[in-house]
Structure formats: structure tokens, C-alpha cells
């Protein structure tokens, strides 16, 4: 379940492909058992995710859900899944509060959450980029705001100023003027690609050359496309492992199957599917058995070692956060952000 169409779909589609690949490889080895993967498009909109969730919850043939892909839709639907006892494993919903506030027993995720990512972005800006003055902008969403706060906490006095934008905004002259007069070395934007594209373009048009850093909301092909030439050199962080760093033949298999290099969260999608498939192999045929299996799962995935804690998160020391740089219009892995 996730945004399979819309402005931010490029963050979601590769993970679905990753899951498809895992299913295909597994089915080849286990042809006595047929498992189907059904896709539910939410466009990333919590209002559209709710009916989809109800449909899945009431259909007993579903025993596991990969998703929600975004934090907002996950927040809106986890109670529905919880009531139905339907296990969710998210490949990319990173809001911290998903596992801390009103925790749902059925919710798990295979990536680090925003607080871990925020701290890592702070360390990147200070230690790797060597920024002395940072301007922080967030998009006022439940994703952007907490991420920006965490980055500000980590950077402390290095933050010269901050500002907020809103979803759907296309005109950023006021923020750009503020940034122009603050003269920072780096600008951090916590938000999604649809706004970051025009924002970065207008920032560069105004002659601001500061390093532009964004969180995993910008990870995917949409951001460099929306920002065009202005995206060159921009840094995007993501708690996802570059696919070519994944173990085994994943990168090559994916490319052979879908004709493109694995994108955002592709390896994570593969891992989510692998966990569910391991559960089915282990004999989990209904929701209760699946939930017990996932809660007790330990194993090595493509991207990291998995073992979910009682909140459904993976251990912080196993989370890897990478920085990616836009070169010639595509995101290329730069380095793993050093752990604290």
C-alpha cells in the first residue's frame, strides 16, 4: 500500500518492484505454493489510504501488508490494521511517532526513523560538509517538521535561521530572500520533491550557491527531474542502502527484471517481502501466526540485520544512513554517514 502514482511515486514504485522480485525468485523455488501481491494506490493521501486499508482488513486472505509507504497514510491506517490483526511492515515510513505514540502491535518497519536520520543529517552537515552556517526549512508536514527540529537540535548554534513552507507551494520568493540575507553555507530542506524542486530552482536563480541538503523525502527520481539543472550537486540523505552495496546479485537481478537500476527503497521492499515469505515458509497461514512470526523474526536481509524490538523498529546500531549526490540528473551514492 502506498503512493503508486502522484508527485512522489518515484519514492515508492522501486520498493514495490523489489518486493515483486523477491516474490518471483521465491516462487521459482517454491512452485507448490501460490502467493499473490496486490497493489493498492493511495497517491500518498491518508484520505485515500483509509478505504484501501479497510478493504484489506476485511478480506481475510491478506495476511501481511507492505506499507504504508509514507508516514501520513501509515498514521491514518495503522489502527485499522491493528484491529484486524493484520501485520504491516513498512519499507519507508520514517516518522518517529509511528512507533512511539499510540503504538500498534502490528506495525513494523525495516528502516531507521526520522530522529535517527535527523541526527545523522546534522552530523553530515557539520562534519562532512563542514558547514558553519545552516539555514533550515521545513514543509510544515508531520514528516518535515519533526525532521527539521531534530536537525536543528543536533546543529545547535550552527543554525542561522529557519523558515516554514507548505505543501503545494510553488512560489518561494520570501524564503529565498531570507536565505539570501542569512548567507548560509548550507540549506537543509525537510519535505518532499514536489515542493523541493521549484524551491531549489528559485534558490539557484536568486544566485544562492549554498550546499542544498534534503532528507529521504527527496530520495527518488522525482526530485532531480523537478529541479532540473538546479539539482546538480544537491545532497539527499536516506536511511536506505544503495542497491549496488546490497549483498548478492540483487542489483543485477533487479536491472534484468525491470530494465532500470534499483531506485528508492528497492532493497528494503525486497527485504519486507522476504520476511513475509519466510513466515509463509515457516507455516504461517493466518494473520495471528504471521504477526507472531514477524515479531520474533531475526535474520540478515539485503540491507541490514533484522530483529524488531517491541515497538516494531530495528535496532539503531543496525540502521544505515547514506548520503547521495545529484550528478548529471541522477542520485549517486556518496558515502555512509558516520554513526555518532
Amino acid at each position, binding site marked *: 500500500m502506498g503512493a503508486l502514482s*502522484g*508527485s512522489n511515486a518515484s519514492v515508492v514504485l522501486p520498493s514495490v518492484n523489489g518486493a515483486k522480485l523477491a516474490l518471483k525468485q521465491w516462487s521459482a523455488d517454491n512452485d507448490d505454493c501460490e502467493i499473490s501481491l496486490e497493489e493498492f494506490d493511495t497517491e500518498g493521501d491518508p484520505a485515500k489510504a483509509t478505504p484501501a486499508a479497510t478493504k484489506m482488513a476485511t478480506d481475510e486472505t491478506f495476511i501481511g501488508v507492505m506499507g504504508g509507504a509514507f508516514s501520513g497514510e501509515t498514521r491514518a491506517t495503522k489502527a485499522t490494521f491493528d484491529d484486524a490483526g493484520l501485520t504491516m511492515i513498512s519499507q519507508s515510513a520514517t516518522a518517529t511517532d509511528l512507533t512511539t505514540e499510540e503504538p500498534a502491535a502490528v506495525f513494523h518497519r525495516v528502516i531507521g526513523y526520522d530522529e535517527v536520520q535527523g541526527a545523522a543529517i546534522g552530523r553530515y552537515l557539520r562534519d562532512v560538509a563542514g558547514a558553519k552556517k545552516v539555514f533550515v526549512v521545513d514543509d510544515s508536514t508531520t514528516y518535515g517538521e519533526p525532521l527539521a527540529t531534530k536537525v536543528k537540535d543536533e546543529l545547535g548554534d550552527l543554525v542561522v535561521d529557519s523558515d516554514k*513552507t507548505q505543501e503545494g507551494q510553488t512560489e518561494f*520568493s520570501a*524564503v529565498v*530572500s531570507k536565505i539570501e540575507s542569512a548567507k548560509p553555507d548550507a540549506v537543509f530542506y525537510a519535505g518532499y520533491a514536489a515542493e523541493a*524542486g521549484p524551491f531549489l530552482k*528559485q534558490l539557484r536563480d536568486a544566485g544562492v550557491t549554498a550546499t542544498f541538503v534534503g532528507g529521504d523525502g527527496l530520495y527518488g527520481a522525482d526530485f532531480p*527531474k*523537478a529541479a532540473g539543472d538546479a539539482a546538480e550537486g544537491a545532497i539527499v540523505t536516506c536511511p536506505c542502502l544503495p542497491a549496488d552495496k546490497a549483498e548478492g546479485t540483487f542489483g543485477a537481478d533487479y536491472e534484468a527484471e525491470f530494465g532500470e537500476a534499483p531506485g528508492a527503497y528497492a532493497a528494503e521492499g525486497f527485504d519486507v517481502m522476504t520476511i513475509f515469505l519466510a513466515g509463509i515458509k515457516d507455516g504461517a497461514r493466518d494473520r495471528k501466526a504471521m504477526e507472531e512470526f514477524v515479531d520474533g523474526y531475526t535474520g540478515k536481509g539485503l540491507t541490514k540485520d533484522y530483529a524488531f524490538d517491541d515497538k516494531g523498529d530495528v535496532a539503531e546500531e543496525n540502521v544505515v544512513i547514506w548520503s547521495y549526490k545529484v550528478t548529471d540528473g541522477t542520485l549517486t551514492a556518496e558515502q555512509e554517514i558516520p554513526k555518532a
Partner: protein
Amino acid sequence: MDFSSLIDQIGEHTANGLTKGAIYALVALGYTLVYGVLRLINFAHSEVFMVGTWAVLGVYTVLGATGGSGVGLVILATALAALAAVVASASTALIVERVAYRPLRKKNAPPLIFLITAIGCSLVLVELFGHVFRVFFGPPFGRALVSIPSLIDTEVWLDLGKTSITNMQIIVVVGAVVMMVALDTFVNKTRLGRGVRAVAQDPDTAALMGVNQDRVIMLVFILGGAMAGVAAILYTMNYDITKFDIGFLIGVKAFTAAVLGGIGNLRGALVGGLLLGVVEVYSSTLFSSNWEDVTAFVVLILVLMFRPTGILGESLGKARA
């Protein structure tokens, strides 16, 4: 509250606000013209603007024009794109009138039906670009943000110390004002314009005097659509993007601008649009961008409390000199 930033760079913020407002004003003209003549709020007008932005993208794509193209191609592509945007927007407005509104008028439908129809037309157009065209033609149609090549680089033309004004800002504001003066002259000075004013003032008497009402209504939709087309080319030159639902927010703001200035009044649209743009940029600076809509509507309410018909009043019919 960031008074120092606002006051320190007041010139720059004003220039930004006028640029933003000029686009609102151009789109607002479409609302005002149609309202002035038909007393109808044409909610499909925001999509008339959206279609214009796609026409610009289409021309650039067909000509293969990009930022690196030669001067000749840039001039040709920009001129053709402007023409295509105007034609596309005006035809969209005209089609909406012919297909949706005219049959309703013939049947003397109550105003509420027109309103619902307008919202329906708007949804149809949005879904055409967001979904249907994608099914048939594939990308760039769809729900994703689309980047439009930036043919002309943004450069600072006027550097007045703390205020730097870019070529884009000058093009947008000058373009918008020229178009509005032309429209104002057309409505006030020409024979066809006199027909528009006559129908706005009193449709029945105008018909008795030999004014063809249907032709005037078509003319009004074409004029409003053409202005939205001009807004579309100026917008895409400045921001280099489009999207299937890009019209929505601009449409709401332009409608607000029309009401602010006095809906039905052409000069009101200009005043309302520019004022709204400046207020938004000031409030974005003073608070932050997520306050701009709040401030914009507070200003609208305050103005309407003291001047219920808007700053300049509603009077396309009575507009003189």
C-alpha cells in the same frame, strides 16, 4: 515576527509580491469578466490557466527548445509558446462555455446548477491531464510535477543596493500590465467592448438594442481565457513547472483577488491581484510561508467588512474612462 528582514529588504519583497500578484491579476480578469456579464463564478477558469501551461510545454517539446538553444530558437519558441498558450486557454474557455454553460442557459437553469457545472468542468479538465491523457499518451501527463525547460536564464537587471530586480520579474509585471491596459482599452473604447458593457449592465435592453448576447458571452470567455493564457506563459517562464492541478491554488487566489478588488470590475482585478501578491509575500517574510494563506484571507475579510463590494466596487457595466 521578523520585522527587520521585512523592512531591511522591503524593495525586494515588494518586487516579489508584485510578480506573484501580476499572475493572480491576469487570471482574476477571467473570473471578473465572466461574473460581470453572467453573474457566474466560473470555477473551471483555474483549469483554463492549467491548459495554457501545458501548451507552453508542448511547444517547447515539439521545437526541442532548451536552456542551451540559440537566441533565434529561444525567441521563436517563446513567441510560439505564448501564442499557443493564449489559443489553448481561450479555446478551453470557449469549449467550456459552449459545451457546459450554454445548454444550461437555454434551459434557464438556476444559478446553483451553473456553479456545480463549473466545479464539474474543472474536475473533468484536471482528470484529463492527471489521468486520462496519461493512459493514452503516457508521461509527462499524470499527477507528477513536470519541469518545463527554462529558455531564458534569470538575471539581475536592476541592482538598487538591497533590491535586485530580475529580468523575469520585469517581464512578468510589464507583460501583465500591458495586457490589462489593452483589455481595459478594448472593453472601454471599442464597439465590441461597448457590447460587453451593455450586456453586463442590462442584458434585456442590450438585446433590444441589437446586441447579440451569445456572441458577447463567447467573446467574454475568449478574452478571459486569453488572459489566462498570457498568465500561463509568464508563470511557466518564471517558475519552469506545471502540474495537472497547478490551476487550483492559483485559481482560488485569483478569485480572491477578483473579490478583493471588486468582482466584475477589470481594474479591481489588477488592484486586488497586486495587493494580494504583496500581502502574501510580506506575511511570508513576517511569519513564514505557511501563514500566507491565513493572512491573505484575513485581509480579504477585513476589506469586505468595510467595503462589501471590494476595493473598487463591482461595475464592469458602469466602468468609465
